[in-house]
């Protein structure tokens, strides 16, 4: 009995906000946009497909924020990774493209991580700088040209393919969320990430290698952004420097709304998934409502503001 009460208590209120928010927005669109086809399985699948890269980046960001760090550069990493993959596949097999894309993401993430962990620079400033740096590199890589991705295997696996009738992007999302969730909740690494973000000194005197954790979370952010870049390139069958450009706000909002604390020590991968889907629904619903792009941006900004405010209130208690 006591155990049951504990279980109920441990179901943090703060995390339930995302469930209510998610359901609320879903129901709102389901009712108001019923005739516009919001509820069709085609449209709902589309939402998942569109949010797949953001969801995967959100997983990386959950780890970074939980460790008390932030990554602002992932949007630029997406572009560099996608372009690297596309260029590598112009004259080479798919494997080159995957290695180039993921490798670029991991390397840039490790670069961020090394500056933060070992030179003790604040991640906010480091990634603010590398965001600009790699956005510039992405532009100069191909002189602003977009590079087509014609490798069918690649576009199948990372884009429009299906496995047992399930779109590959849905599979990527599910697999990434499950793996991310298990690492976050049930491994020593996940526990150390939370401890470092919660109380770095306590972590350090407990023998946790704090710099290594900081290095790892930012490298992981780079890796997830690299994978997101591959997914964009696969789905659009092309890579361009603009990829990932608009993801910064969406992904950060998804993660915060999903119950991850901005200052570390607390978070949820599942919450980030729901947050990301919620952002996707919002996008989709506002388009179906026939709002102009400028109005969409305003409404989305306001809703994100509201959602983030509610989430943070709950965190502070």
């Amino acid at each position, binding site marked *: 009995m006591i155990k049951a009460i504990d279980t109920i208590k441990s179901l943090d209120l703060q995390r339930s906000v995302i469930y209510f928010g998610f359901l609320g927005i879903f129901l709102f669109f389901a009712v108001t946009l019923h005739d516009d086809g919001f509820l069709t399985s085609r449209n709902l699948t589309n939402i998942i497909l569109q949010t797949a890269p953001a969801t995967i980046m959100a997983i990386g960001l959950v780890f970074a924020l939980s460790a008390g760090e932030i990554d602002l550069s992932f949007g630029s990493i997406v572009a560099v990774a996608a372009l690297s993959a596309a260029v590598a596949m112009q004259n080479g097999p798919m494997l080159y493209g995957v290695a180039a894309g993921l490798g670029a993401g991991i390397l840039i993430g490790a670069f961020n991580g090394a500056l933060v962990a070992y030179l003790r620079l604040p991640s906010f400033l480091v990634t603010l700088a590398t965001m600009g740096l790699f956005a510039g590199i992405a532009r100069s890589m191909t002189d602003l040209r977009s590079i087509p991705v014609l490798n069918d295997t690649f576009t199948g696996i990372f884009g429009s393919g299906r496995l047992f009738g399930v779109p590959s992007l849905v599979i990527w999302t599910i697999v990434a969320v499950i793996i991310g969730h298990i690492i976050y909740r049930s*491994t*020593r690494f996940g526990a150390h990430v*939370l*401890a470092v973000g919660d*109380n770095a000194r306590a972590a350090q005197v407990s023998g946790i290698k704090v710099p290594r954790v900081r290095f790892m979370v930012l490298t992981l952010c780079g890796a997830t952004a690299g994978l997101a870049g591959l997914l964009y390139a696969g789905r659009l069958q092309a890579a361009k420097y603009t990829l990932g450009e608009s993801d910064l706000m969406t992904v950060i909002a998804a993660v915060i709304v999903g119950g991850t604390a901005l200052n570390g020590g607390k978070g949820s991968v599942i919450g980030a998934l729901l947050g990301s889907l919620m952002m996707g629904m919002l996008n989709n619903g506002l388009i179906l409502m026939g709002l102009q792009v400028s109005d969409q941006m305003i409404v989305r900004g306001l809703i994100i503001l509201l959602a983030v405010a509610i989430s943070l209130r709950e965190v502070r208690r």
Partner: protein
Amino acid sequence: MNPTLSLKDIQKSFGGVTAIQNFSLDLYPGEIVALVGDNGAGKSTLIKIVSGVHRPTSGDIALDGASVSFSDASAARSHGIEVVYQDLALADEQPVYMNMFLGRELTRKPFGLLDKTRMRSETQSLVDQLDVRIPSASSTIRDLSGGQRQGIAIARATHWASKLILLDEPTAALGVAETAKVEELVASLKERKLAILIISHSLDQVFRLSDRICVLRRGEQIGVRKTAETDKNEIIAMITGVHNE
């Protein structure tokens, strides 16, 4: 009987400044020794030397008669030395059991995933043994009182220490009732044959808890007294260096 901890002629200087000079002390199992002195007397430096954070400039540290040298705090920990810090060093948003096993989490074969069930049950039995009353091993630290938190910090040290616990102002942030509870807990550790070195600003507490009192002044060891054979006036005189007989 070998002393648990034996410090001999410990000296520590930072640059040209001497923080500790010629400090020698033996600590026996089941003994509580209090380290007293004014701010800047070198108490914390001494704790940091014993816990492996600082290395002594010269002098010997021996555990159970065997000479040791710690490269860092982890090395001291693996020798069975635990520290309870004034600011507790707990991760507030995490549950009690994760704090109990912070940095030393238990895992389960075959995937090496966290064994939360075992961590919870071991935590529960430990806090029960030590009579630290908390709602549950799964409670979040933030939801506990200052006394409960300090109880957790001490329980954690007790769980991992096989030889020595260093307590750095364990009740500095606590109220009267909570202080009494923590003192009770510290006193109960004697039965576990652990050696305990405690820093405290409260002479009342020192006299309640300790077997011996070691006085430091400006890095110098003024003397060691058996608690039963001294009084506050003598200790205060030793701390301040002012004798008013």
